[in-house]
């Protein structure tokens, strides 16, 4: 059955704006009183955070907050057993505990009045970990867990 749209060229509504550099992205908007956040990623792939020192970060000019698992708001609990583990049922679980599950997992967020302040604060946070062995082979991992 021939389709009128599938496989036919279609002009994107946003195409011209994007290729000509005219498209406005969220970051291009100049809003009053906007603040900036920089995420601190874990530098291990699996383990626990044993210590986090944000004292230098808190002193950076213009810093508004340093969010960690110690002070982040509690997110809704994980889905109950009856919900199985459907991707659509999973709730975002960041900054809720000291467990690191994957490389570059967000473990803190530095919020400041300027992007530079947020970046400097994020970079000055000192983290210590108890590192565990991590897996890099998905198939072997799944088979091993059956």
């Amino acid at each position: 059955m021939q389709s009128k749209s599938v496989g036919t060229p279609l002009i994107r509504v946003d195409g011209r704006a994007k290729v000509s550099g005219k498209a406005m992205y969220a970051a291009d908007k100049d809003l009053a009183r906007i603040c900036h956040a920089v995420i601190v990623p874990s530098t291990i792939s699996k383990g626990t955070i044993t210590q986090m020192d944000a004292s230098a970060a808190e002193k950076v000019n213009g810093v508004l907050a340093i969010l960690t698992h110690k002070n982040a708001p509690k997110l809704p609990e994980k889905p109950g057993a009856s919900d199985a583990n459907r991707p659509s049922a999973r709730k975002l679980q960041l900054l809720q505990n000291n467990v690191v599950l994957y490389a570059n997992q967000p473990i803190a967020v530095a919020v400041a009045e300027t992007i530079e302040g947020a970046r400097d604060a994020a970079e000055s946070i000192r983290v210590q970990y108890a590192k565990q062995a991590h897996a890099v082979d998905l198939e072997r991992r799944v088979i091993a867990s059956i």
Partner: protein
Amino acid sequence: MTVGALVRNSDLAAHPLVRERYPVLSEALLSGATGQLRNAATTGGNLLQRTRCYYFYDPSYPECNKRNPGSGCAALRCVNRIHAILGASPQCIATNPSDMSVALAAIGATVQVQGAKGSRTIEFSNFHRLPGDQPQRETNLQPGGVDRVCHLPSQPDCRRSSYIKVRDRNSYAFALVSAAAVLVLDGDTVRDVQIALGGVAHKPWRVAAAERALIGKKASAESWRTAADLLVQGAQPHQDNRFKIELARRTAVRALTTAAALS
């Protein structure tokens, strides 16, 4: 010609006087980044851009003397394909990724900087530093200093100049090795030459002996190869970047050949 620090890379590359008098600069700028980045990038910013060494960026590698003085250099024991073969130190083997700087080095530009104590002029070859035992210091700007303008000299005549950039992809990639050549010919005799290599060191790499060796020589492949050998003299390869030595030689020869062939 004087170029302000806030001039956009795309504007500088497109300027008719730059294209006419310093084509190597225009070619170098256009070979870098993407159109969108060139529209946003400035002369001042490009001069100060930092290395793209993976271990400098990734904090999961704690060893980086540039990021954390005294912690070591992960690149020395890890994949170091894009790293330096010249002018490096046991503390740091990172390279400078700027194309514009290689062209400015070959042109012999000077940089006027402003600091707390006033203004001064720095020869381009002294603007960027070699890593030595302080790889965290990348330029000779003092803390609080800012680069204000770049002066492009009227001598030597840079109209016969070329930039050759060799990389894994044809576009949107940093140089593995690049070469900027400025040639002044008298018939087919070399009257003056300035040549800089990129992608091989912590700063654009010029060797006075290589340039001196060409003065008065015939513009020929043999002459270019002699100069190229002198340019890479003392090269120290690492596990994954040995190819850069021969590549640098050939890229230098190609840049000189291309410059010589310009009408």
